[in-house]
């Protein structure tokens, strides 16, 4: 097991290095110039040239790459070209909103999605199953921003129950923090609930048709024991895989929700940085995100052993 974990961690470094080279080249080869963005629409060529020189953007690409890697290895992720602040400081400011939103979304999605999936499988072919299947199809089909605007219109503007936009850090109190996250969490959860519910239903249906389930029923096991003790445990591996992948996608996919609800998270930081060609931010966030993806996958792989004792590394 330890050797496996070590191998995976080493592969993480290789993945991050590949991502680093790819992102660096992509940014430098893509059209656009941070100096021009800084200088403004009416700026003269001289103003832009002066800023380029100062930012070191005229250095040869290999020199820029070496500087970047050297700084990163020493723990310096660079300074935002625009904000003039360390990238790590900016990322730490944006981490809490994204982690809060993602975690709450996953919590809600797993709780409701798995419950819906079990219910649908248990009552397969019945009205509840058809209702939940219809919900799943709807959840997949409706884009998150449509759900977002819908929720804002009814719950924030018409009913005035919740704020339209913004984020309050948890340090300002649990109430305001939670209040600002309710609508974004619901908007973002809909698709994930649908996804997890479908996978859970399919896995559970497969398990429920196994011989040992019939045996359990013949022995007089209760519905609860059959579903949660026997079936869910055996259907757990694919569900866990899906939850892991969903969480990894969620980290990078919250940007639309962050935009609709004006949540200053990592997603918006990256999108703004891409629009501004703020190279240090884009590079650092993508590198760290790739590391996070690998870490989540590793965690999921290790979690398999808890659900299924037959799995060994």
């Amino acid at each position, binding site marked *: 097991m330890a050797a496996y974990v070590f191998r995976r961690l080493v592969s993480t470094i290789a993945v991050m290095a590949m991502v680093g080279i790819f992102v660096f080249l992509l940014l430098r080869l*893509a*059209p*656009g*110039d*941070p100096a*021009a*963005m*800084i*200088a*403004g*629409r*009416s*700026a*003269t*060529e001289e*103003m*832009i040239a*002066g*800023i380029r*020189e*100062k930012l070191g953007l005229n250095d040869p690409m290999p020199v820029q790459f070496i500087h970047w890697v050297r700084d990163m290895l020493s723990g310096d992720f660079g300074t*935002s070209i*625009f*904000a*003039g*602040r360390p990238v790590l400081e*900016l990322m730490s*400011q944006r981490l809490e909103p994204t982690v809060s939103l993602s975690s709450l979304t996953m919590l809600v999605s797993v709780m409701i999605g798995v419950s819906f999936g079990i219910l649908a499988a248990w009552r397969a072919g019945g009205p509840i199953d058809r209702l939940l299947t219809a919900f799943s199809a709807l959840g997949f089909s409706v884009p998150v921003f449509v759900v977002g*605007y819908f929720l*804002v*219109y009814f719950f*924030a*503007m018409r009913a*005035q*129950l*919740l*704020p*339209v*936009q*913004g984020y309050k850090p948890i340090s300002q109190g649990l*109430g*305001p923090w*939670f*209040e600002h996250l*309710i609508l974004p969490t619901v908007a973002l959860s809909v698709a994930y609930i649908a996804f997890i519910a479908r996978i859970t239903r399919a896995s559970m249906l497969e398990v429920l048709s196994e011989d040992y389930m019939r045996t359990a029923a013949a022995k007089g096991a209760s519905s*609860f024991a059959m579903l949660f003790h026997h079936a869910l445990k055996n259907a757990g591996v694919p569900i866990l895989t899906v939850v892991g992948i969903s969480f990894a996608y969620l980290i990078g996919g919250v940007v639309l929700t962050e*935009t*609709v*609800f*004006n949540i*200053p998270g990592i997603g*918006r*930081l990256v999108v*703004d940085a891409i*629009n*501004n*060609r703020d190279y240090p931010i884009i590079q650092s966030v993508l590198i760290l995100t790739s590391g996070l993806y690998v870490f989540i996958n590793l965690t999921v792989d290790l979690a398999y052993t808890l659900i299924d004792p037959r799995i060994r590394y």
Partner: protein
Amino acid sequence: MTISRREIIKTGLAAGAAISIPSVLRAKAASGSTPTVHMVKANDLRIFDPIFTATNVTADHGLAIYDTLFGLDSKFMPQPQMVGKWSVSADRKTYTFELRDGLAWHDDTPVTAGDCVASIRRWGQVAPGGQLIMERAGDISKKDDKTFVISLKEPLGILIDLLADLSPPCLFIMREKDASRPATEQVTTNIGSGPFRFNDALVKPGASYTYDRNEKYVPRQEPADGLAGGKIVKVDRIIWDNISDPQTAFAALQAGEIDYVEQPPNDLLSVIESDPNLVVDVLDKSGKSMLLRLNCLQKPFDNVKARQAMLHLIDQEAFMSVLAPKYGASVTSIFGGDTLYSNDENTGWYKKGGDPEKAKQLFKEAGYAGEKVVVLQATDWAPSNDGSQLLAAALRNIGINVELAPSDWGGLSTRRAKKDSIENGGWSMFITSEADFSLANPLATPLLLANGESAWYGWPKNDEYEALRAKWATVATLEERKALARQMQGLWWDFVGDVRLGHYVSPMARRKTLTDIIGLPQVVPMWNMQKA
């Protein structure tokens, strides 16, 4: 396991109560709050140094935390602001300025003449007006802690106007140690002597910026008038919330979470107007002109006939109906729609609805032989995105081989600097805009240069025009300058330095409770505004 109806009702009531808690808490919080104004600016405040960049949002930031030597009043006449007294020598070559009492930096140290000298020198590195002063100045020096002198090699009648100019980058006075940096290097602190203090502890780059009232600021005694007069701050705090989605910004405005949206999208204006709690208002009455820059170095627009063809082709009414419905108009003067120097010299090319036949004829006379015409289209700026498509359609209608080159503004900014041929990644035209206030000063805006490859993108060249433009700084009276403007415009429309697509004003939206915002071109000062 069974669930009773009573349990379901109980659960529902509990959930309802739980959901309503936040709104109750919010109502309580609102009733005890101090006057804080929430504003959504047109762009994010990406750069804090108002000399380092010419963007309007940074100029607004500068206006809040820094002070200026002079300020333009509502009639665009320069009035002393930090300056208490000033005088000019009999030969009009030596200007002496004395700072007024009570000026202090946010770190409580006094503002000195040395700070002013350093600030003028730094501004003079980048601002066209400042560069002109630096060219003409023999010496700029401090006489004592409160007095400094600008000695000129020859008289410069518009010196005070240039010092007061509000076209970014404006002359903001910074601490000497900040202003000693080169203009291409950002100032890293936000310490000014203006009516607001920038709250560094609360800044969240890309998300929100907080300005607190500077309790120690000593305003002038005169009433506020444009950028002149007393800068009296009537709210405790102003927060710029960066809401990138216009629909969300609008919803927040309606819900009362935001007080001001600087640039609401055109398609929401009618909805805003119909809301009894909101007002659509125009702060910059002089507005902006929408321009088409043509690449004078490459075919086909290296031929003046092809450029003249574009003048005749454009149907300004059609463009404005798309780009600025309700708020657009036609414009024929290079100095803008309604400025001191707007005139009708050599505007015979203008025809309502355009004249495509004439344009076709002129392209033929230019020897156009099907060369590709590349229109740079910035998809993240609506006027460029929509206008370029309209432009392409108009050109195709008269048989021009057009190719749209879509990118974001960043991509356009890079490509427009290329002087190469179309085959080597060059370009033919792109849409931009400029404030009429800036266009009324051909020494301040780079868009009215015609000195070839040193000119702004498109690089028009006309030596006769440039000779006239050089006289702008020396003519003594307004009437003489107006006459000069007519001559310059006469030439400009002959060699076609650019093509106008129309003139427009940008409406902003605010809640009715936010009042007394000072309306000016280019900048939005935050003093004087009140929130009920």
